């Protein structure tokens, strides 16, 4: 997987062929990751352009204010944002032989609610993660996060299949996965008090192992040390180093 630099203010809008699809991304953004997972799982042909989110190019903000990732861009000028909506759209236009959502409207509605309500887990997680470096860190959101996750454990237990959506990962699986890639960060950044309690979630732990075998997940996966390096840089007080993976890759290539 070729790592590419995050475009900042001053870089021009890279041209895009008329029938081509581009996903604007930030390599460490969990919301953007959702769209990459679906794009890959659905066999959609797309290119990825990374964007520097603290120094956004003007053309990027103008394309779809306020300039968030993921943003989809078609070569004919069509643009779309909002990770859940982008993901459902990609599911609709991608490989019809692999629907990510249930064909049963009731099951589909239940799954949409699950994906939607995961924002409670995300909020609680972010309350800690975005403040991890502060001396007065309130750890109570961690307990909230665990209680919200209990519901997902319970829900998965009640389903006969390996994944939320069946024998292969589907909509719910991909919409929640990016944060499962990041839970370990709490223990790493804050300490043992926030070590992720795998034993509390036996089904979700099995599910995590199964997800790590999935092709789409493997394509975009970053280990916790990489997420950690990004987080530390993001909250270092200085400029965020978005492109350390690009440089690491260049070093490797030049050593061949």
């Amino acid at each position: 997987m070729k790592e590419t630099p995050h475009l900042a203010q001053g870089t021009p809008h890279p041209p895009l062929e008329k029938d081509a699809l581009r996903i604007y991304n930030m390599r460490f953004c969990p919301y953007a990751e959702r769209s990459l997972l679906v794009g890959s799982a659905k066999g959609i042909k797309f290119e990825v352009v990374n964007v520097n989110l603290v120094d956004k190019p003007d053309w990027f903000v103008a394309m779809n204010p306020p300039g968030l990732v993921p943003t989809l861009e078609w070569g004919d000028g069509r643009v779309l944002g909002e990770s859940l909506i982008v993901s459902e759209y990609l599911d609709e236009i991608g490989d019809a032989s692999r629907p990510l959502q249930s064909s049963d409207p009731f099951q589909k509605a239940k799954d949409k609610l699950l994906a939607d309500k995961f924002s409670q887990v995300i909020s609680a997680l972010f309350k800690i993660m975005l403040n991890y470096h502060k001396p007065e860190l309130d750890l109570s959101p961690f307990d909230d996060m665990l209680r919200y996750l209990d519901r997902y454990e319970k829900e998965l237990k009640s389903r006969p299949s390996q994944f939320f959506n069946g024998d292969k990962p589907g909509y719910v699986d991909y919409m929640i996965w990016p944060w499962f890639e990041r839970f370990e960060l709490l223990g790493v950044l804050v300490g043992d008090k926030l070590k992720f309690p795998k034993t509390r979630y036996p089904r979700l732990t099995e599910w995590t192992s199964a997800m790590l075998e999935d092709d789409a997940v493997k394509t975009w996966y970053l280990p916790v040390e990489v997420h950690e390096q990004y987080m530390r840089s993001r909250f270092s007080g200085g400029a965020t180093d978005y492109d350390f993976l690009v440089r690491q890759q260049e070093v490797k290539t030049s050593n061949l």
Partner: protein
Amino acid sequence: MLAEKVHLAEGSTKPPVENGFVRIYAMRFCPFAQRSLLAATAKGIKFDVVNINLEKKPKWFLEMNPAVPILEHDDGRFVIESLIVADYIDEIGDSNISLHPKDPYKKAKDRVLVDKFSSVIGPFLNCLMSFGKPEPDVKLFDAFLNNLDRYETELKSRNCEFFGGEKPAMLDFMIWPLFERFEQFAIFGGKEFLLPEKRFPKLLKWMTSMLGNEAVKMWLLPAEAHAQYTRNVHFAGGSKDFDFLVNVK
């Protein structure tokens, strides 16, 4: 003319759902519940409505969900969250009537616009609550208008009677309930709190078009009814009477 129904409260018994019917739990003045009623009516599905007193919720209601709307089947399965309910209704109803645009991109763009409408709803509610205080905050009205501009621009760029084209689509129905309630500002604060015609010519015309739609007409309440509800339930010292329409002949 719609027969108004009492809002069931604590101590009430849950009315069973009739075989073959779908039940929508609503509150007569709730804009989110109204979304489901509009969708269900537009799709022509067979449903009944049970109104819930949201200040004194029945225990049997809370066992399902703390909020309206809820869509319940006769076998007990239920769906919550107004937009999820509306999507569900679109899927289980007559497939010849599609509330969502057929084109995936248009559908997605419309969904973003519905999603972003929360940026109008928030300031709208803040401003409305402010009218219940001795000194309403006019800045809140400006904030509300600022966030509404985008919808005027969008409607203008579509150059159609409705956001959905020649007929209202999901987007039109999902945002309509709030437009039914905007006139409350003028009722509470005076004519300077009407939507300015020069700023929102397309939206005002759209509102007139929507008022001609059968589903909209079915559930429509005049601004004064909404204002009375706001006074009763949201302003300090209100009567908490949800049923003031029920006994009016």
